[in-house]
């Protein structure tokens, strides 16, 4: 039997976190707007995949429509700012609260479905929300012209890109710690039990409906939060951000990072969100290369990048 491998992995993870934080706080202040923009979208991506990882990776339920929550969060905060004239910092908590409520209601409805039906149901949700903003409610939401937001002011001082990045980073860290705490507590164990075997989980005294709903709410709220941060980051939102491909890529990110591994999400999201930026230079070959890379990950690191990498490190001769 292999002895416990918890300790070395734990130290390794702590060091990675410290190095990461130093790079993330110091480096961006030296970069120009384009690279800062990349940091920002990666941060938003991390929140998206962290949320889905709770529902898909830990709780084992499929969700094809994360883009829907993302879209709802973005449009809610945009509408609160534009129609009600609220300041971003006031619109922010209100929109977040609404995201929690909407996720709770959607979860109550959608989680009557299971497995394949749940996949279809969530996919439908993504379509409905996308079509609502794209065409159904063109008058209120601007259709494909989208909604433009004024720049963020604090008094007479304009808060620029660097502030946006730190704001996003703070939320990334908060979301990560929240996920990490939750998934290692009693709730996380209940989620894993449901992932492994629902009927056995029920027999162990776990209220399966309650805990899957809870995971869905976290997933939806994280995605909603990402949407709110997107309005802050991009100052313009339109249906283009919330195509089905967005949901698919979030799902891809969770699989690439390693389902159920919170640290995996931290590397998966930047890969998924930066890949188009890098590969766009190869023009027509972009999708081909994306496909090949995805295939390689699925073929040689089936558990996902983080678990595969930490396996490699563990096995390396010391």
């Amino acid at each position, binding site marked *: *039997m*292999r*002895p*416990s*491998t*918890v300790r070395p992995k734990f130290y390794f993870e702590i060091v990675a976190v410290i190095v990461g934080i130093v790079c993330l706080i110091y480096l961006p202040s030296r970069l120009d707007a384009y690279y800062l923009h990349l940091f920002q979208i990666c941060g938003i991506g991390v929140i998206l995949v962290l949320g889905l990882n709770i529902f898909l990776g830990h709780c084992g339920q499929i969700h094809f429509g994360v883009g829907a929550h993302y879209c709802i969060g973005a449009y809610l905060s945009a509408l609160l700012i534009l129609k009600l004239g609220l300041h971003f910092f006031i619109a922010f908590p209100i929109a977040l609260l609404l995201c929690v409520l909407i996720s709770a209601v959607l979860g109550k409805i959608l989680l009557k479905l299971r497995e394949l039906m749940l996949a279809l149901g969530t996919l439908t949700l993504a379509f409905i929300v996308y079509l609502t903003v794209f065409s159904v409610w063109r008058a209120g939401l601007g259709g494909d012209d989208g909604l433009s937001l004024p720049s963020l002011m604090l008094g007479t001082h304009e808060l620029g890109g660097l502030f946006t990045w730190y704001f996003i980073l703070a939320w990334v860290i908060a979301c990560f710690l*929240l996920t990490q*705490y*939750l998934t290692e*507590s*009693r*709730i996380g*164990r*209940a989620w*894993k*039990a449901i*992932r*492994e*075997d629902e*009927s*056995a*989980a*029920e*027999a*162990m*005294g*776990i*209220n*399966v409906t309650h805990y899957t709903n*809870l995971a869905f709410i976290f997933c939806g709220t994280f995605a909603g939060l990402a949407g709110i941060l997107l309005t802050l980051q991009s100052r313009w939102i339109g249906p283009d951000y919330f195509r089905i491909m967005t949901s698919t890529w979030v799902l891809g990110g969770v699989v690439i990072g390693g389902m159920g591994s919170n640290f995996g999400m931290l590397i998966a999201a930047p890969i998924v969100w930066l890949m188009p930026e890098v590969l766009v230079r190869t023009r027509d070959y972009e999708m081909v290369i994306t496909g090949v890379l995805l295939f390689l990950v699925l073929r040689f690191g089936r558990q996902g990048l983080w678990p595969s990498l930490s396996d490699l490190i563990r096995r390396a001769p010391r």
Partner: protein
Amino acid sequence: MEAVSKSFGGLTAINEVGFGLENGELVSLIGPNGAGKTTMLNVIMGVYPVDRGKIFFKGQQIESLPCYARSGLGISRTFQLLKLFNGLTALDNVKIGAHHLMTQGIISPFFQRTLVKREETEVAHRAMELVHFVGLENCANSKVQNLSYGQQKFVGLARALAGEPDLLLLDEVGSGLNTYETDVLKEKLRVIHKKGITILLVEHDMHLVMDISDRIIVLDQGSKISEGSPRMISADPKVIEVYLGKSYELAKG
């Protein structure tokens, strides 16, 4: 622990069966395949709703309670087909068994750190104790799917015990075990029994059943055909006909 009695129609997997379990008793449920033994456990656990009849536990009527609530009252079970949490370690499996004994909620990790710390140490300690008890201390941190079938059976037993049950439902814990493992199991069951935990055992290994049971209930085609001490049952002509067979009688001399 009050009398458990129930009857149940529909497909007639179980037809008007009633019995009671005394506190601290070890009762075996035997019968040929398809007699409704596992169904009976599922009904007590709440996996299926009853069609007719009533189930009492500790004087409380429980047949309308959902499965997870019943385990909160102190009923625990193992599964015939194991149903372990395969991707998790043996220790985590056992910890999950203690789910309903813990009280942490969503906000606890932030505002009730001491509660979380206390509960986590407690559950880790208890889970380790149970893993020791079933003799798996060497594989506590191995994933369950990498353990042998016999070891997995013991993980299932430890997981059921982690919920500190008053009533333990064991569905064919002895099947698929080798002779040595069966002897170990018998010892463990005796220890559990001595602690005063009521056990309802479904089992095909007659040596095990006859050795440790206080009382035996025999089911056939959904009906109770006999009930009594091991000695009475092994001499009951009806039971011999439907289940034990003539050879068993002969073997006993």
